Each structure stands twice: as C-alpha cells, then as structure tokens.
C-alpha cells in the first residue's frame, strides 16, 4: 500500500539534500588523501550494492572481486593497447564481466547455498591466478601501470575537464555510481518481489511457475556487470593494477565486500551503501593505530554481528532498543533476535 504523499516527498527532499552534500565534498575536503579515501568509498559502495543484488535471490557471492578484475583489466588494456576512449572501455569492461558471468551462469547456478558461495570464491581466485600467470596482459609482479584516466571533456570550447585530479574523478565516480545505484534500484523494484520468493523458498517458487534459474541469472549477470563497472572505475582511478595475492583482487577483498553488505544491513537498499561508506572510512580514521587497525575493524564486524544483526542501517532501531532496555533496567544478553534472511 502506498504511503501518504507528504512522507514520500520528504524522503525525496532528504535524498536530494544528501546528494548535494556529497557533491560538495571535494570543495570542503582539501586533503588529497581523504579525497582518495572517499573515492574508494564510492567504488566500494558500487561493489557492495552489486553483491546485494545477487544476494536478493538468496545466494551469497564471495567472488565479486573476480568480476571486478575482469572489468578493470579489460577496460585498462583496451584503452592502453587499442586507444579506445576510457568512457567506452569502462562500459565494455562491465559488459565483459557480465558476459563472462552469463557464460558461467549455467554451471554456477546449478549450485546453491554454501556450495555456490565457495564456488564464487574459487572462481574469483582462478581469475586472479590466470591473470597472474599471463604477465603479457597483467604486467607480471610489477603490475599494469600508467593506466590513463578518462579523456578530457571539452565543454563547448569554454572550459575543459580533465580527470587527472582526484576531485574531478570524485565527481565522475559520484555520477556513475549514483546512476548505477538508480539502475539497481529500478531493477529491484521490478524483480525484487519474485527474488524474495526465490530466496525464501526456491522449490515452492518453481512450483508456481517462477523460472528460478532465469531470475537468478538476471540477478547474477546484473550484479557482475556492476562489479565490472566498479573495476573499470577503479583501474582508471588507481592507474595501476596488480594481481598479487595480498593486493586488491585477493581473497580478502571479496570478504570485505561481503562484510560491507552484511554489516551495513542487507535487507535495505541503503544498507550496503552505509556499510561500504562506514567501513571504508572507519579504518582510515583508525589509521593512526597502524597495525592495530585491522583489530579494530574485525572487532567492529564481530560487534555488529552480535548486537546489530540487521546492520548499521538499523542503528536508530537499535538505539531505541538499547535505550528502552536501559530504562527498563534489564541486563544485556549476547545474541539478538532479528530477521535471519
């Protein structure tokens, strides 16, 4: 049932204000390093949201990083070796990742649950290793460097925008990611109900005529497309790609992306967004702690899983809950009820 008109417009107004603030960040943030972190946050937002799209059907992909790799390298190599404009190569990168996802979907979607998750994890690792052992494409241990930024845009001869600077790239990221989120939101609005049915009981869904494999395929391909786009955005931002096991496309990143989604709160669209932002910025805030920083991060994740199962996005709910309990004088107990799926 639709809500009252005033509430809907208030929400849209708040969203608009938020977007304006986001676009003002480079203006206020003179520090180049923090701008860099914010840019990474945008990319993580897209990654976490792409993961959530796939998870709407009940399958947790631990291999988004693999499709990000496909998008990143195809975009980088096409622009560097064939001189194709970066705008186009980023798109091709996304399409390439989606294409590979489509090809692999037939075997991969035959698996479910933990098997699917492990499978995606391994497939991403295979992509990385394959790249590592093809130094002609990946640049070997030194990596692929000097990846060009997107070309300059000439605005009616009045002024031109280059993307070598972080602040301009920030705007690019903001625009692309926001458009992507809009697309994902649109897809979810159409297919989300059926995805929910599949996630809660796929046998039952199949028995009422829902083409479960087909719907899972759409979610998977769409999710991998945007992971590929994130990869392209990443490549032309960092100007360097490596396939070293401890680096960007390693197992740990896949895990981080899943953490962004779950810790942010996978039930709501905004969950992964909040999760990605908070968990990209928080470690940076904790950077002065140096080696202790991952301990803080890990502890935060554990805390959220125990006490805020629905995610950071549900913070208002939890604050009310804890306040209520504090007022009622009840003790805290480990573990928390909440939606499990």
């Amino acid at each position: 049932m639709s809500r009252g008109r005033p509430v809907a417009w208030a929400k849209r107004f708040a969203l608009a204000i938020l977007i304006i603030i986001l676009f003002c960040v480079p203006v206020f943030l003179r520090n180049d390093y923090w701008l860099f972190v914010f840019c990474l946050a945008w990319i993580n937002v897209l990654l976490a949201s792409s993961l959530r799209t796939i998870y709407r059907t009940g399958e947790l992909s631990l291999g988004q990083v693999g499709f990000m790799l496909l998008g990143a390298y195809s975009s980088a190599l096409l622009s560097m070796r064939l001189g194709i404009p970066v705008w186009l190569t980023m798109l091709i990168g996304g399409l390439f990742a989606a294409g590979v996802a489509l090809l692999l979907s037939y075997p991969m979607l035959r698996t479910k649950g933990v098997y699917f998750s492990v499978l995606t994890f391994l497939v991403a690792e295979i992509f990385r290793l394959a790249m590592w052992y093809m130094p002609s494409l990946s640049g070997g241990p030194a990596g692929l460097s000097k990846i060009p930024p997107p070309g300059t845009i000439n605005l009616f001869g009045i002024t031109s925008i280059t993307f070598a600077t972080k602040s301009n790239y920030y705007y690019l990221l903001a625009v692309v990611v926001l458009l992507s989120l809009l697309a994902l939101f649109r897809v979810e609005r159409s297919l989300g109900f059926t995805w929910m049915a599949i996630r809660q009981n796929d046998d039952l869904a199949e028995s009422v005529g829902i083409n479960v494999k087909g719907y899972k395929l759409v979610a998977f391909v769409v999710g991998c497309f945007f992971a590929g786009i994130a990869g392209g955005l990443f490549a032309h931002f960092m100007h360097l790609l490596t396939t070293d096991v401890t680096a960007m496309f390693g197992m740990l990143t896949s895990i981080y992306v899943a953490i962004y989604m779950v810790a942010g709160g996978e039930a709501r669209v905004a969950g992964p967004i909040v999760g990605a932002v908070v968990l990209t910025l928080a470690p940076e805030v904790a950077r002065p702690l140096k080696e202790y920083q991952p301990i803080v991060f890990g502890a935060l994740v554990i805390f959220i899983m125990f006490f805020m199962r629905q995610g950071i996005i549900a913070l208002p709910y939890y604050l009310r809950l804890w306040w209520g309990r504090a007022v009622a004088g009840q003790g805290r107990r480990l573990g928390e009820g909440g939606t499990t799926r």
Partner: protein
Amino acid sequence: MEIFGIPAASLVQSFINGLALGWIYILIAMGLSLVFGTMRILQFAHGEVYMLGAYAVYDFVVLHGLPFLVAMPLCMATGLILGLILERFFFRPLGGEFLPTIMIALGVMIVLQAMVTVGFGVTPKSIPSFAPHAVEVLGIRLGSDRLIAVTVSIALILLLYLFLKRTKLGLALTAAAQHREASLLMGINPTHMSVAAMAIGSVMASVAGGLMGSIFPINPVMGGTALIKGLIIIILGGMGSLPGVVVGGLILGFIDGVAPVVSGAATAAIAPLFIVTIILVLRPQGLFGHE
C-alpha cells in the same frame, strides 16, 4: 629414464615431497570437515588456528628455548583453548545461522591475523628444524623433518579414526555429522558435538601449523593458503566424509608436488581450483560425500 622429459627420479622426488605436505594439509582439512559435518558451518577462522599453532611453536622454541617435545603439546593445548573459546563465545550464540556465522568467522580471522602481525611482525620467521638431517632411500632424499611430520600426521589421523569408531563420543560425532536430525532424535546433544568437533579440529589444525612451521618459514597470512587447501580437499573428498579427506589430500598433494615440475607453476596453482569448481558443479558431494 624420463617421463615427460623429466628424469623419473626427480619426478618421484617431487611426488614424495608433495605427498609429505599433503598429510599436513589432511590434518587441516580433517578439522574443517569435522566442523562442517557436525556444525554445518564453514569455519573461516580455521586457517588462523593453524597459523597460531605455527606461531605458538615459534614462540616456545625460538623465544623461550623450549625443546620441541615440550613445544608441541603446548601447541596442541593452545589450539584446544582457542577452539573452545571460538565455539563457546563466537559460534554457539549464533545458533548456526549461515550469514552471521560466516561474518563472525571472518571477523575473528581478521582480528587474529592482525594480532599476530602486531605481536610478531610481518616478516617471515623460521623455526629451526627439529631434525635437520635427511634420509636417502632408493635415490630419493627425504628430509627427516618431513618424515617425522608425516609420521605424526598419520598417527594423529589414525588416533582420530580410532576415536570416531571406538569411543561413544566418537560414534556420536560420526552420527551427528552424517545425519543431523536423526542424531538429535537419538538424544545426542548438539552442543556437546559442536564442542567436540571444534576442540578436535582446532587441535589438529594447530599441530599442522606447528609441523609446517618446522619445515617452512611462517608468516601471519599463511592461514589463508591453508584454508584454501583445506577447502579444496574437503570438496574433492566430500564435505563431512573423513576417508574422503584422506583421498582428497593425497590427490592435492600429488598435484602440488608433481604439477610444478611437469607443467609449471601456473598449472600447479590453477589446476586444483579448476578441478574443484568442476566437482562443485557436477557432484557437489565430492568423491565420498553424502548429501
């Protein structure tokens, strides 16, 4: 004599080396399989238990000068305590739910890795071998440390087998791993099973770490590789099947040992993963699993 252009002797040497490592990986995979079979969760922090076992031995032997024969039991104790803590305070409160358990295990993994990095630094450390000589049999060199490591591994696995087949707790554990609902109906307490599985699994993992650390240098991120190896083995052999773990481990050991020599590092790294993905798609229960 040459096979694939490589002298047979060095082929056999590589094969033996791979098998030796394989037994240590089997120890890791056994624990992972036991936990998965009993608790139905993928214990992502299992690799870190292994890593901590290695660092425990390093600490006892190098920093405190204790002899190996003392360090190893202490290492087992460390593993046991860690496993019990994880089960009681991290996994039990979650009730086995898929997503929260994975997240907690990942959080624990990150914290443990960071703690070791803080405590010991990120550069690899070496533990002086407890048996620096080598034995030569039929033209094949076998490091005594590897020989002992294999012997210890096999001994532990045999002990585990006897435990599972001959003791009441062991039989209950097997039953719980094979058919959870039926075992509940028979009055088997799932909490006791979880505790037992985590305890045994963690002890085996930490011993594996200690043994591995005596042969190779250790670093804080060694847990990740171990976890992947363990995953590969239990998928090959079948999740929840213990004979499958042995077979899977030997196959992996074979590939790990021989493939780099025969077809290069690329194949050696990718082939096991590739084989396992095929298995996951075509026969998710693995070679011996039942699901």
